[in-house]
């Protein structure tokens, strides 16, 4: 009736280690499975369901990048908003970021330090959201990104499949 699925993962002793309930809703929440810890393959919830409806905030000072990244995300079913350029004060970033599930930030912005922004988001975060994903054309930025609380890195220029793969990876790594 609700087109859902429920199952329990048993540990070696045969005791339930975690339970998952998956329900298919139409619009809003992309993630409807609740993990109680433990790691297991989410074979039943298709990655596209997780991405569709995801609320994403784009932070970039390049108009071209913004337009293209927005379109990529919308193609994947995300709901995209972006900060008006110049308004990356701690308050406005925190407020905008708080209402979304993923923040995508360009590491090579001119007037804005993306790592600062990422740190601010991490500090003002309560709970799981939002994730932060960085876009960069530099190599070897993983460590610095991880230190700033960035959850994923995309090489520029952004390619749809890589974006999708990285989104899935971030969403599945609790």
């Amino acid at each position, binding site marked *: 009736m609700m087109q859902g699925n429920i199952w329990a993962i048993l540990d070696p002793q045969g005791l339930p280690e975690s339970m998952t309930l998956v329900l298919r809703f139409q619009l809003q929440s992309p993630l409807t499975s609740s993990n109680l810890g433990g790691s297991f393959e989410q074979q039943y919830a298709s990655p596209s369901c997780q991405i569709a409806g995801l609320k994403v905030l784009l932070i970039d000072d390049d108009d071209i990048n913004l337009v293209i990244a927005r379109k990529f995300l919308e193609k994947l079913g995300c709901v995209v908003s972006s900060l008006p350029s110049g308004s990356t004060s701690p308050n406005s970033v925190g407020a905008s970021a708080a209402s979304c599930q993923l923040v995508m930030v360009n590491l090579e912005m001119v007037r804005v330090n993306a790592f600062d922004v990422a740190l601010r988001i991490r500090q003002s975060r309560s709970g799981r959201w939002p994730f932060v994903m960085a876009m960069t054309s530099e190599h070897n930025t993983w460590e610095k990104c991880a230190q700033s609380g960035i959850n994923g890195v995309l090489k*520029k220029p952004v390619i749809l499949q890589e974006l999708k793969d990285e989104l899935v990876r971030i969403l599945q790594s609790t």
Partner: protein
Amino acid sequence: MKKSLFDQGYLDEQFCQVEDLQDEASPNFVEEVVTLFFKDSGRLMSNIEQALEKYPRDFNRWDAYMQQLKGSCCSIGASRMKNECMSFRDSCGQGNVEGCMRSFQKVKREHAVLRQKLESYFQLLRQAGPAGAATRPIM
């Protein structure tokens, strides 16, 4: 014509990524992005030109501007232009003023050529109409 743009290196695979984004909801997406690109890049290039004059040997400033331009080129697949941007940045890194000046002229030239070629390309597409779209099924 599109094939020659790729064969001659004016455009790379990233342009195809952008084209793939075009759909019924945004049927002119590619042309809109390209128009935006030329508007933005024109502005960036005049900033660079001014900086070259007003701030001699300010390689950091020059490089920062060029990094922006290179980023845009990259995003739409403007391959030759991107390469010239990278040469410019190399020259900045080496503190080579002559090299920067030379590279910048090349960037300007590639910019002009690409604009011309893409304008012709879109004109052809308009004439061909939706049925005449060559290699890509969705236009």
